[in-house]
């Protein structure tokens, strides 16, 4: 977050336009207190993957009354409703970012353990149709595909 932008938040946190995370919270019916709004704003405007302590440090610069416990609770809540994602980059600290708007799935190569992300509009449409045909509103889905790479043809088998 740049200095001028942070100063604007400090000067008039209630007047600024709602951040993406604030709007996502509102869409999910989450009551937004002033402190939750500040935390959501810090996360929305972070270009990196801050851990909880870093989010607390940035939020406290805007509202010094925010406690670390409030930040922990708010981020747990945001994670539970799916608007932020937790990452583990192997340094033992959970780091967070705003959940990506693009919905994607994972294909797992069973021979190497590699995980490949993919999107497919036809798949999304099919899932929504299945839920609708069964009389449900689609709330979420989970799909993992397991496979192994197709063996490439050897030179000797190639057509001439």
């Amino acid at each position: 977050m740049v200095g001028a932008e942070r100063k604007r938040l400090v000067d008039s946190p209630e007047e600024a336009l709602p951040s993406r995370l604030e709007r996502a919270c509102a869409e999910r019916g989450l009551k937004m207190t002033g402190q939750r709004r500040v935390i959501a704003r810090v996360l929305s405007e972070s270009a990196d993957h801050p851990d909880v302590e870093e989010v607390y440090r940035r939020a406290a610069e805007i509202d010094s009354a925010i406690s670390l416990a409030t930040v922990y609770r708010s981020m747990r809540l945001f994670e539970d409703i799916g608007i932020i994602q937790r990452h583990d980059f192997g340094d033992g600290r959970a780091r967070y970012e705003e959940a990506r708007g693009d919905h994607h799935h994972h294909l797992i190569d069973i021979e190497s353990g590699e995980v490949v992300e993919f999107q497919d509009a036809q798949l999304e449409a099919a899932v929504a149709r299945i839920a609708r045909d069964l009389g449900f509103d689609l709330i979420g889905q989970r799909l993992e595909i397991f496979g192994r790479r197709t063996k490439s043809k050897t030179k000797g088998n190639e057509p001439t």
Partner: protein
Amino acid sequence: MISGEDDESARFAACESAVCGCRPIVERAYRELVGRGRPDRHALEAATVVLRWHHPELPEPEAVLIVERWVAGGVLH
């Protein structure tokens, strides 16, 4: 006579042996899924599928225990 416990230990040892080599594959699948934001439990289940492809002889509960042990520290109970 080989007891059931000895038989189980032998299977565990086979999974972890260099000859098999599936452990780093299972660990990679788990690590990459968690790294992409999947919940620990989902990543564990997927890694168990990978292990059972390499070792279809392992019953599911046993495979889960092995994966949990391999990725210990990353799984919340």
